[in-house]
């Protein structure tokens, strides 16, 4: 065992990258939940985004286009959920599970001929001399564009929810859909848009795994990240900045256990690989005492004639 092999600067730089898929998916889900929709299909939308992005990136040679199409794919799949919950008024928990099961199957079907292929690499953003600053350089200025995009999305979600009229309307729909409806807001339309935003973010998060983190396609490769993202929204008490914090915490644990595996610690690999899931449970236990922050209409079906 050689713990000195773990360089803290590289570890922090790597955890920022490891956190990005969770960050993107959780931010998208946060918007959907603030609008009162509990979408348990994050895992399904992520894996669909992962394969859509992968196929496009491999065929066009452009990872950027891959990410765009991953967002489109995730949003398209989320439309199925929107149809079930907003038009067919189905139970949101069941519909979300259906979306995950369907997405896992669909992605496996689409990805059959893409196993073992290496996708084109996405270049890091060039910051010039900033990247050469000791310690801060590698941590802050050595990443691919999606890492920064993730942070920008968190910041914009926070700004929109806090300062704009659109954000206020979205929160009103999530807190009390009957009152929002009475005020003349289109509850279903707003929720559908929030669901699609969640799908697009989850899709990009999935593509980040298949195009940058791994980078390869294997069936079921998101391995529960979507579910961790769902837990993260609870952990963050539905606040965007706390999502960022939580994502870095989980990214840190994921990265640390990978490094410990590499350093040959005496703990068996399987037990290290369990750690992110167990930490998620522990965090949920610690934080679930405070339920008051949850949006008031979360998970409830809206039907105008009631």
């Amino acid at each position, binding site marked *: 065992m050689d713990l000195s092999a773990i360089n803290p600067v590289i570890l922090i730089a790597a955890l920022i990258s490891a956190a990005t898929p969770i960050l993107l998916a959780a931010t998208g889900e946060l918007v959907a939940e603030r609008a009162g929709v509990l979408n348990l299909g994050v895992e399904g939308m992520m894996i669909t985004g992962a394969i859509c992005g992968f196929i496009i990136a491999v065929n066009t040679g452009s990872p950027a286009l891959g990410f765009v199409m991953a967002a489109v794919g995730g949003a398209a799949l989320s439309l199925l959920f929107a149809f079930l919950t907003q038009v067919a008024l189905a139970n949101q928990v069941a519909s979300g*599970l259906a979306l995950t099961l369907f997405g896992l199957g*669909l992605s*496996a079907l689409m990805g059959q001929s893409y196993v073992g292929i290496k996708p084109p690499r996405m270049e890091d953003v060039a910051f010039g001399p900033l990247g050469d600053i000791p310690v801060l350089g590698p941590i802050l200025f050595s990443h691919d564009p999606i890492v920064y995009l993730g942070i920008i999305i968190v910041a914009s979600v926070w700004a929109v929810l806090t300062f704009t009229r659109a954000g206020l309307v979205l929160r009103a729909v999530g807190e009390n859909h009957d009152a929002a409806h009475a005020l003349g807001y289109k509850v279903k339309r707003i929720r559908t848009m929030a669901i699609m935003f969640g799908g697009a973010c989850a899709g990009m998060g999935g593509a980040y795994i298949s195009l940058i983190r791994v980078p390869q396609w294997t069936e079921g490769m998101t391995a529960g990240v979507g579910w961790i993202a769902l837990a993260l929204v609870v952990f963050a008490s539905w606040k965007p900045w706390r999502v960022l914090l939580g994502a870095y915490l989980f990214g840190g644990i994921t990265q640390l256990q990978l490094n410990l595996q590499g350093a040959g610690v005496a703990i068996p690999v399987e037990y290290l690989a369990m750690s992110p899931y167990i930490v998620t449970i522990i965090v949920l236990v610690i934080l*679930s005492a405070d339920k008051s922050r949850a949006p008031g209409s979360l998970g409830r079906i809206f039907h105008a004639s009631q």
Partner: protein
Amino acid sequence: MIRLEKRPQPSRFYGVASPVFAVIATLIFGGALFAILGKDPIQAILTIFWEPLFGEFSFFYRPQLLIKGAPLVLIAIGLALGFKAGIWNIGAEGQYIMGALFGAGVGLAFYPMESWIIFPLMVLAGAFGGWVWAMIPGVLKVKFGTNEILVSLMLVYVAEQFLASMSLGLLKNPEGFGFPGSRNLQQYPSAHNADLVTGTGMHWGVVAALIAVIFAYVLLTRHRLGFAIRVTGEAPRAAKFGGVNPTRLVLFCLGLSGALAGLAGMFEVAGPAGQVTIDFNVGYGFTAIIVAFLGRLHPLGIVCAGGLMALTYIGGDIAQSQMGLPVAAIQVFQGMLLFFLLAFDLLTNYRVRIGQREAI
């Protein structure tokens, strides 16, 4: 203009008819999917649904129906009780794995002793393993208010890692030439969950599934606890005033569904699978969710739904070997079924009115 009007009572007709509509819609869209994949849709659907039951080799496939259907029904019965009460155990896959590990562990601990007591002990251990794994989300929910959906699901991934660790470590066959995986329980008579009548696929898991169905039916229709489950799901506030103890209900529903999933895993590992391996679990715990919904959370419905899903597994295998239909296509097919079912359920709870709204 199309309007939806909530029915005062869910429609009984559509309660039965909507799963049938969902199956028909899935056949149409599934056929279209097979056509897109370049397979003859009619032939693919016949291969999946006709071949296993009435085809040339049906004598071989019919027993498979029981082997694949029993774990699905066993797990789905437990899940359905919880779903009815709004308690969402979606980690049955993990409980299934833990049941198999506990059951196989007890059996292997006695190896090579032969005694009639070993198999019953394994059954108990299997149920206990699943129960313990489901009690984790249960206890966390009642003690700390933690969301049982997320905890039970996280525990699936933990159980999968644990399974890998066990089949590479503690339970590894010492005479296995270093290959991962345990001793084969099929070659250990005291622990083998053999066919009760040779060649029928009728093993103890099938018996357990039938007992579970009858038990659940009696519980839901004749027992106070079943009433408490139904009331809690339909009107939580009324249940509170009616003196239902939510803590006990959560623990009962999660514990029972975990124990049943554990039993399913134990019967599988001691019978059809035979040994603990890294890829022992094949997703029964997740498919059982579809089975529970397709069966409308009703014990008899679940038996029909379990049979249908088992058929798609077996028929999917045949279609794969005969027509080169990818396994994933069957997974999509199953997912589609759940989608259509949820969509058609609209008709059960709402009336669709076409025309102008009358002036009030």
